[in-house]
């Protein structure tokens, strides 16, 4: 789930600019459960650092100012590329689950695509790393 978070957050801010808390709420509505700020903001910060999103301060009528995140052209390219890779991966998993070894060759190519450094997927799992708060 954590690996998919990066792509999902990019997808959420692609439809319309949003602030961190709104992103948390939308992810909860989408079935991710209650995510803490400690899980969301490091991902947003990395997207911002990589130039995938840009942010601006919004001063609401009441309450403190907040930071809205919006996707950039670079972020949209990244989103399209990663979404395609995920589609391929999900399709391969479905086919493997249904047909077994007949689809093994196709599965290998999909997994190889997901191992490429640009992608953030469950295949990059590192068992020794401590995960951030969820």
């Amino acid at each position: 789930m954590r690996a998919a978070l990066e792509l999902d957050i990019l997808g959420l801010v692609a439809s319309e600019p949003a602030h961190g808390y709104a992103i948390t709420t939308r992810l909860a509505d989408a079935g991710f459960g209650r995510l803490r700020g400690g899980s969301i903001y490091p991902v947003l910060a990395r997207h911002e650092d990589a130039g995938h999103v840009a942010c601006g301060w919004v001063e609401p009528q009441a309450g403190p100012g907040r930071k809205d995140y919006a996707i950039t052209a670079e972020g949209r390219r990244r989103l399209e590329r990663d979404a395609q890779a995920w589609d391929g991966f999900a399709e391969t998993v479905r086919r493997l689950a249904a047909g077994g070894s007949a689809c093994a060759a196709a599965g290998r190519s999909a997994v190889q695509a997901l191992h490429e450094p640009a992608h953030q997927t469950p295949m990059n799992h590192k068992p020794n790393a401590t995960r951030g708060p969820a």
Partner: protein
Amino acid sequence: MSKQSTGHPRELFPAQDRGWADRALLQLIRADVARAQVDAALAEAAAACEGVGGRAEDVHGTADAWASARVAEWRRDGDIVWAAEAPLDVRSALVSTFWLAAGLALLFGLSDAMRDRTVEPTWGYLLLPTLLALACVTVYAAYQRTLRAHSRAVASAVGVAVAVCAACGVAALTWATRDHEPFEAGWRIVAGQALGNAVVALLLAKVLPQRQPIGKTPVGEIGAGPMSDDRWLADCGLALRRESGQSEEWVRARLHEATVHAHAAGGTLWDEFGPPMAYAAGLPRRGTSLLAKSVRNRAVFGLSWLLLGLSAVLRDGDVGFLVVGAVSVGLLLVADAVISSVRARRQSISAHPARPGVE
């Protein structure tokens, strides 16, 4: 099948790859990776070499490249594998002061012995190692305390101001007590200074309760347990300003953003973001942070040499070979730190010229 760890991770590698393992370990430690993670990563690397049956350099590339790739991977994926220094507390400050004083007393004694010189043991001379150590720790504590709420520039200005005040205070005390010689000169004075300070350090370490770990600690273990929002912001601000290499504007934006989020969620910052040091470690860093550390270390060494030169002038009252040498080394190190800092800043600005446009 991989070998079981027998203690040091280098032992998992064959003899010809142990140099590679040592270099990789050094690079990971320098990048502030927690020791347990370093050992685990090296164990994985050793297992991969054993599985393939090749030399570490053939399987993983150079040790530097392998360590850099692992660090980049952990950062990219937001893995909390880092270690950091816990903020300085009263116990650490006092114990460090007296250990440093004991070390300085020995150095001064050694310096006198090498020059075959007998120093008049005035009160100022007797207390000089303790006062200098106290000045150094006070400067560091003031810098760190200021950094919890203010920018690095403000903290540096406070540190310099405290250093000047401390130097003036030490000089004034040494001058005021120049005619009072309570003891006979001799090696017992040096032994008394060193032993006295060491005993005080040991007693303080024994008596004062230890509230936090000493040295670099996994970030999740620092500041463990719920804390007030103010303390969370101060700890997180300190960690970000000290380690991230990001601008003050960036740091303040992160802290404000976290506060707004916790307010909207109806919880505390601890509830929403966990330990502040761990949260700060998970945020991206500027590539110059390693360089910044190196610059900081050179600046600290440089100032230490300058202080050594100053103390020699205060004790001897003349400008001899030791003073000229110490001040020259100090000035060179400080100048080098300043030049490196300016270069790093220029590189940082040219690497991040403007924010990408929003669609």
